[in-house]
């Protein structure tokens, strides 16, 4: 039995320790907002936060995250900054198929949580690990810029 803290709730899970966090989240805890795209840390669809930092849950053995605070897309809507990000995503009509967008939003939110100064280069660094096959990149950039401006951290 492993003890996991996901979105503020403690779960006991009976899974092999090498099972990637992604599959525990999706198949055991049934939180399917976090997506599977590649399984090798190439696409970012599986991005969640571990103690506030963005991580690729598809390559993270669940035993290595026991005791840490995990946040998935389902667990962010309470936070004002997250709501701003989601709002900006809707205002800019970012999503196309939407499949990558949970991961995009988790990476963007981590960037915004973390940085006191954001510019295009910071967006490149924070978001380059998130593929979008529908190529919604132009709008992702605009949405992040929009939130950065509204919270006063945009510094081109």
């Amino acid at each position, binding site marked *: 039995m492993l003890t996991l803290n996901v979105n503020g709730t403690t779960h006991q899970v009976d899974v092999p320790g090498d099972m990637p966090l992604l599959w525990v989240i999706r198949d055991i805890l049934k939180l399917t907002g976090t997506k599977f795209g590649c399984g090798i840390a190439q696409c970012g669809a599986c991005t969640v936060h571990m103690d506030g930092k963005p991580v690729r849950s598809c390559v993270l053995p669940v035993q290595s995250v026991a005791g840490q605070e995990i946040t998935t897309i389902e667990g962010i809507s309470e936070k004002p900054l997250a709501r701003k990000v989601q709002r900006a995503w809707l205002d800019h009509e970012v999503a196309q198929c*939407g499949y990558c967008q949970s991961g995009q939003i988790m990476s963007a939110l981590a960037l915004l949580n973390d940085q006191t100064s954001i510019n295009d280069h910071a967006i490149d660094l924070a*978001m380059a690990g998130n593929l979008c*096959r529908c190529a919604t990149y132009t709008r992702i950039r605009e949405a992040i810029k929009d939130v950065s401006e509204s919270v006063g951290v945009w510094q081109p």
Partner: protein
Amino acid sequence: MKDQQVKLEMASRRRFLKGISAALGGLVVGAWLPPMAPKSAAAEAVAQGKASLGDSLADGFGAFVRVGHDGRVALISPKAEMGQGIQTGIAMMVAEELEVGLDQIDIQEAPPNAELYTDALLQFQATGGSTSTRYTWEPLRRAGATARMLLVRAAASVWETDSNLCHARDGKVFGPTGQKISYGDLVDLAATYALPDDVILKRPEDFHLIGTPATRLDTPTKVNGQAKFTIDLDMPGMLITSARACPVYGGKVRQVDDKAARRVPGVRDIVILEDVVAVTATNTWACFQGLKALNIEWDYGANSKIDSAVVDQKLQDAIQRDGVVATEKGAIDASLQAASSKFEAVYEQPFLSRSPLEPMSCVVHVRDDGCDLWVGTQVPGFAQQTAAAVTGLKPEQVKVHNQWIGGAFGRRLDFDFITQAVRIASKVSYPVKLTWSREEDMTHDLYRPQYADRMTAAVNGEGFPVGWQHRIAGGSIFARYVGSLPASGVDPDAVEVAVDPIYKLDSLKVHFIREEPEVVPVSWWRGVGVLRSTFAIECFVDELAHNAGKDPLSYRKTLLAHKPRVLTALDLLASKVAWDSPVPRGRGRGLAVGEVFGSIVVTMVELSAIGEKGVRIERLVTVVDCGLVTNPTSVKAQMEGGTLFGLSAALFNEIDIKGGQVQQENFHAYRQLRISEAPPVEVHIVPSAEAPGGVGEAGTALIGPALLNAVNATFGDRVRRLPLVRSGYFIA
């Protein structure tokens, strides 16, 4: 043809009326849909009485629009949502004519029903080919307008007044003395009326919703993790399954040692099929681990001797031959003989994978008395047919629940993974969710064919082509998808655009040289024939302009004097990018123009050279005239995404084959453009009142040639083969 249409129309009417009486107390409005092509398997089966139509109107489904007692409007969408925003677009069409708010509409996925939901442009029930807006534009608005007319008539009869004195707005009918009744209270009476014959659609100048940047209906749940795709579904008693098919297409399983796989915690069953081995388990990870632990001996078969070099050589040889003539106008031989000069070039494009971000996934429950499929598919009718064929059930016993699609790009026009899921599900007693690993997905895709185009122009004294010969060599998607080529021997998709180029030519001859790669199956992509032809023609014309020492934009304009809409688009582009002002040193601009999927697109790429082979994209501008726009936000989004999708492929992508096996297994080897490399895409829409054109693939079609033309302008290097990285270039 005419008679048949009339007959079907009558049948459709009858069913409509029957539908009303049995509908769940609501008003059901269908619109006439034309019959489907005899080439569609589903359609053929239906036409011969061999298959059912699936959910019938008598079961309570209206064709398109149903108004409930609560006033809510159910819109049965004949088009799948895969990110293109089409369901919002269709809802706008219905809402506009029905006079309801977008928020009153609930979208449901259309069940397989070839007669009702066939797309007349595609000639079967499908979402693809950039036909969705073009096709739904008329029938969906008509469905909305029809419902509105019936509701107004019902209100008028309640008030004992003339319908002409009443009008509808916001889900209510208003009468001459200020009376009002909401739609929900009128549906029972309205449902007793026959369909009106004199449906009049709004004039574009009266639209209040169409043409506005309405918010997408499907996006709110796509930003909070609540949106469900096929891969996210869970059913009572369901297990996960994942499969490994023979790495070489056409190969078979020889024997399997599954001892180790059975010891993986969570693994339930090992299903061995002729060419596939599958593992079922309580979770996806256990499936993947179980598959890894299998010791499978394969009989790879004949294709295992084929490498990319073999495919290459066959195409090189093929393109030197003549093929089946797809079109011949004027006398090309005479033109070539009389020409003051000739010019010839060969353009090549690689195999491509579709690789949508959601890997192939399908939930199936096979029972003795029926089968349910929950799957995001572009072809629900084919999904139903294949499940019926595998299980021996009747098609009407197969229910297809279409789902939102996590990217398609043509992938979900194929139903190989659905067939596989049903084959696996037939061997077990519980529902399964098939989920492919990315590796399985990429190596068992069906691939956009590798192609070669040989263009030979007769050039006059001023450097303009008087005619050209265009030879196209490659595998035929049409033949693979439909079962055979048309009697002409020409793949109608492959020669699209080539047989009707936008440029004015006195003579034209197009050959289709079928050269099947055999080693992998070929299929659709985000545009195929249109893209391939446009790529060859736009690179070629650019070369001709260059050879003539003329500006590529004004050169094109000279050849396009008969195309005023294209000229307008070109002029708009020229003004947006200040085409006539000089480009800074070390930079170059490339251009491409096309009339594609019913739209006109002009794309310009500006590059700068970083060292000898470093490419930096400085600017990417595209102008689109797609006729009347339903939702400008969606048009822009499609142009942006489609252009970058094409750019990614043009820069980086190529599927290689070694020993019959696809070499690219995941996104590290089949790399995609990342945000740090993606230039902003400037989209300009030409205001237009023409019939709507498609935009899903339009941007994708123009970026490849624009990029290579820009590479020539910047580096003085005429690259004629995609992807660009093949020629040593990199993104700097």
